[in-house]
């Protein structure tokens, strides 16, 4: 199907790429979303509404930035997603993007868990710890190393 994104214009989305959020995403309209990559190899995706072309939110895979991040999904949430093993789950965290990198934050408390094979998604409350809904995404070290043309060494992400 094709959606007319207000941000990106026409986007072609394969039917089997649509993720059904039966309970929606807290505070946002619609129940069908798709992950859209803006740049090849980017650390970020847009979780784009299929129902409302103006709704999209940036997400990232938390372990790229926080290697020691833990997620615990309640039995109820696992059941709703049909998750039997953690290998079946993809985890994304919502990013609040800003003009400056140091102002980017990520919600580690309410991750979005997707059963990849069943294409079911759900925003859960992480029971693994007291994570912040507004965790700064880039550390000072990362910001320095991310300067143009100086990022030849892999950037060390830090734990929470």
């Amino acid at each position: 199907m094709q959606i007319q994104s207000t941000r990106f214009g026409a986007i072609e989305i394969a039917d089997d790429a649509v993720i059904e959020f039966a309970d929606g995403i807290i505070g946002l309209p619609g129940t069908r979303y798709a992950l859209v990559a803006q740049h090849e190899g980017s650390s970020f995706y847009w979780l784009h509404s299929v129902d409302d072309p103006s709704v999209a939110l940036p997400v990232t895979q938390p372990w790229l930035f926080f290697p020691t991040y833990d997620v615990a999904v309640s039995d109820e949430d696992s059941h709703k997603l049909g998750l039997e093993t953690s290998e079946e789950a993809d985890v994304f965290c919502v990013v609040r993007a800003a003009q400056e990198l140091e102002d980017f934050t990520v919600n580690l408390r309410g991750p979005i868990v997707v059963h990849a094979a069943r294409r079911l998604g759900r925003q859960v409350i992480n029971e693994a710890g007291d994570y912040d809904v507004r965790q700064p995404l880039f550390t000072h070290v990362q910001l320095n190393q991310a300067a143009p043309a100086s990022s030849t060494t892999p950037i060390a992400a830090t734990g929470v």
Partner: protein
Amino acid sequence: MLVITRRSGERVVLGDDITITVLEISGSTVRLGIDAPTEVPVYRHEIWLAVKAENQAAASSEVTSLPSPLTK
């Protein structure tokens, strides 16, 4: 707002299929047991508010170009 007084062990019923039980009262803390159909999401209010605010802020950011690869 409807205000109801309950003692430990007593319940409140919402509609046909939601039951809230006061499990334990200890000082200023109340433990509640909530039985609701699986299609009814239940959240702690302050967490629900915080997550909702982050989602709406993330979705309404004017930034449309996200950083290119910054991690390996």
